[in-house]
């Protein structure tokens, strides 16, 4: 029992960077822009958060800077795909390459450096004593609580505000939104920027809270899993929780199962086998429920056509 509880408790922090990244990518894709640069933005977030924290000793400053760096990276993609109407797949991929390379260069001096200031866990008085879920959900660090809050905020804004309607409309049919007087580019820039901020935060969580250490290439494919979770969640923030913690749980299992003599190579495959399974399940559900990706996802929007 305590073994399972331990796994579940560890699942939350393991899933948190994925959740943060997925929330952002959901908004990005809801606006019709596909950003395959999540991996690059995450790792740049990770290295900048670690660097700033190591220099200033202030974790929160590190987290803030990671959000700005992630958002800034995303703006490169936004400029390519919205203003220049370039191929979004290529632009996103190059962002990933750029991030992986640049973070390695910047991070060289931080390899093996310990962090003096860390985010300590902050049990919430009262809530943490709820049997079973209390210790799992409410005995965590403050960033986890922020991720809960953000999930709610992202869901609420998407479905209950004017901005949400505009965002979803732009991703479904930019021409309809345009003819309704919506500034399509503005919404898309904003959505991509939010996506970058969230990916940056996800990376920061990884390097200053979860690890806490800087290791080159430490995102190790998490950016790609974020993209899978985005599809699995059917572009709904509240469903991203499920996907993120599922993958978080698998990540925890990877470590917890090693002592049982299962080959680490096999265990390292787990998240990606799961990615394939999850995508198969998701596409089944997508066809059954007659929902699909935002209709104009990945298609640049041109107004004046003959």
């Amino acid at each position, binding site marked *: 029992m305590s073994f399972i509880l331990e796994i579940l408790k560890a699942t939350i922090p393991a899933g948190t960077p994925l959740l943060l990244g997925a929330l952002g990518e959901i908004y990005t894709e809801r606006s019709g822009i596909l950003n395959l640069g999540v991996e690059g933005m995450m790792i740049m977030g990770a290295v900048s958060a670690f660097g700033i924290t190591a220099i200033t000793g202030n974790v929160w400053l590190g987290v803030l800077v990671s959000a700005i760096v992630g958002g800034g990276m995303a703006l490169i993609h936004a400029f390519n795909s919205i203003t220049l109407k370039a191929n979004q797949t290529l632009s996103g991929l190059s962002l990933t390459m750029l991030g992986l390379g640049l973070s390695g260069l910047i991070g060289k001096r931080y390899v093996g450096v310990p962090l003096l200031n860390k985010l300590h866990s902050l049990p919430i008085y009262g809530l943490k004593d709820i049997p079973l879920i209390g210790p799992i959900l409410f005995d965590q660090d403050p960033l986890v609580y922020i991720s809960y809050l953000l999930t709610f905020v992202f869901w609420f804004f998407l479905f209950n505000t*004017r901005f949400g309607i505009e965002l979803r409309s732009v991703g479904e049919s930019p021409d*309809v939104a345009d003819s*309704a*007087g919506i500034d399509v580019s503005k919404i898309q820039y904003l959505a991509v920027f939010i996506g970058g901020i969230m990916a940056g935060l996800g990376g920061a969580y990884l390097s200053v809270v979860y690890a806490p250490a800087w290791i080159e290439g430490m995102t190790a494919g998490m950016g790609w899993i974020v993209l899978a979770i985005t599809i699995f969640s059917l572009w709904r923030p509240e469903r991203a929780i499920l996907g993120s913690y599922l993958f978080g749980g698998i990540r925890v299992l990877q470590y917890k199962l090693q002592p049982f003599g299962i080959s680490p190579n096999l265990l390292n495959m787990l998240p990606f086998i799961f990615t394939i399974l999850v995508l198969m399940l998701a596409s089944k559900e997508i066809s059954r429920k007659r929902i699909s990706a935002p209709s104009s996802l990945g298609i640049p929007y041109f107004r004046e056509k003959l």
Partner: protein
Amino acid sequence: MLEFKGVFLVMEKILQMKGITKRFGNITANDRIDFELNRGEIHGLLGENGAGKTTLMNILYGLYTPDEGEIYIDDARVDIRSPYDAIRLGISMVHQNFKLIQSHTVVENVALGLKGLSFFYPNRYIEKKIRAFSERYNFRIDPNTPVWQLSAGEKQRVEIIKAFCREARIFILDEPTTMLTPSETKELFRLLKLLKEEGISVILIAHKLDEVMEVCDRVTILRGGKRINTVDIDSIDKDELARMMFGQDIVLEGREEYSVSFDESVVLEVRDLTIFNDKGLPAVKEVSFDIHRGEILGIAGVSGNGQRELIEAITGLRKVVRGSIRILGEDVTNMGAKEILNKRVAHIPEERMRMGIVPSMSLEENIILRSYDKAPFSSGLLLDYSVISEYAKELISKYRISALDEKVPAGTLSGGNIQKLILARELSISPVLIIASHPTQGLDVRSTQQIHELLLRKKEEGCAILLVSEDLQELIDLSDRIAVMFNGTIRGIIDIDRANIEEIGSLMVGV
């Protein structure tokens, strides 16, 4: 002054467009057009396809910026750079292809871009407004239905509600009746007249003369990008309008005699056909019919009642769940599309850009799409382009396709010429069976006439023709028998000499 409403009222000019010019490349879509609109009138904008009606209205709505010309609203010069500007000035447009988001609900569609909505929970206020509107004008619509579940008529009402909620004073409707059933059209006109009473001005882009005569107060006629005239509807008749529209006399009456004529021998035999739609639900249920040599069987019905699935099954594009299809006695049920086409079946598909041609490939390549792998066009491995060019040139002149040459990308042709290209390709295989789906949808009168002539000539030659159309007049003008589809079943097959529009119309809506 008010005893005779509308007669003695001083006409207030709400909108003036002066000298509007718009060019696309070398084409001048609008050539110094003047247009005026009064308060509380329904103003028809009449012209063939390509006359420049939609371009002019897109300029008014800020989707295009004019190269020259000025726009005045309430005598003040305005600069409309985007739909946002247009909406702010009280202009709303109902496009031919509805500008609605299919996966969103009615409320969300209406809320999109609406000024003065609260940021949080914008839907609540809109829902109330929609209910009030539908009560006031006496029609039903559920604000929380996703738009893809609505019929064309209902979608249009959503568009009108959108315009209304934005407090528009000028409604632009782009060929609003194309997708509507006769009863829905009547309902639309009733609504427009009510809106007019309240001082709203309506611009009705149209190419059907009857509708213009029925509902408009004035009409402006465009031809070839130029304004021909603006006239009061009371002072003009249909023939005169047609003359201004086409620049020459055209025959407006239908065929000479409505008689049934065909051979006894059956070409297409469909028995107890059941077909599923994309969602895996039955779209066609136990449908049976025959088409004979030299017969045109028309399929009438509001789109979405199984016509598309039926056509796809007959042409081998969709799986048949139960039942059988025979062509000249041979069972072709669930054969591949190419196998079926090789039984000398011609297919004129519904979406000509998507299914009829490869837009980026040249005209000549599109012409040999069905026979590229056979001599003389291909010698095993290589294509013989000199033979292909010759052949394409021959068909271009035979079918009167107007194109720069045979090398231009097929997608750059106009709708009518694309359709003629498809017909040229499909009819040159000397078919025994022609499956034609909405062959003249969106085409101008001249192209429509040419296509009708081609189909009738093939009928003379003994082809069996299955004609699916939403245009009842077209079905009545061409068919020997008309089958009415509703909700996946055939509600009745009527011989043309006994057909009348009212009966077909009521079968179409399931009465």
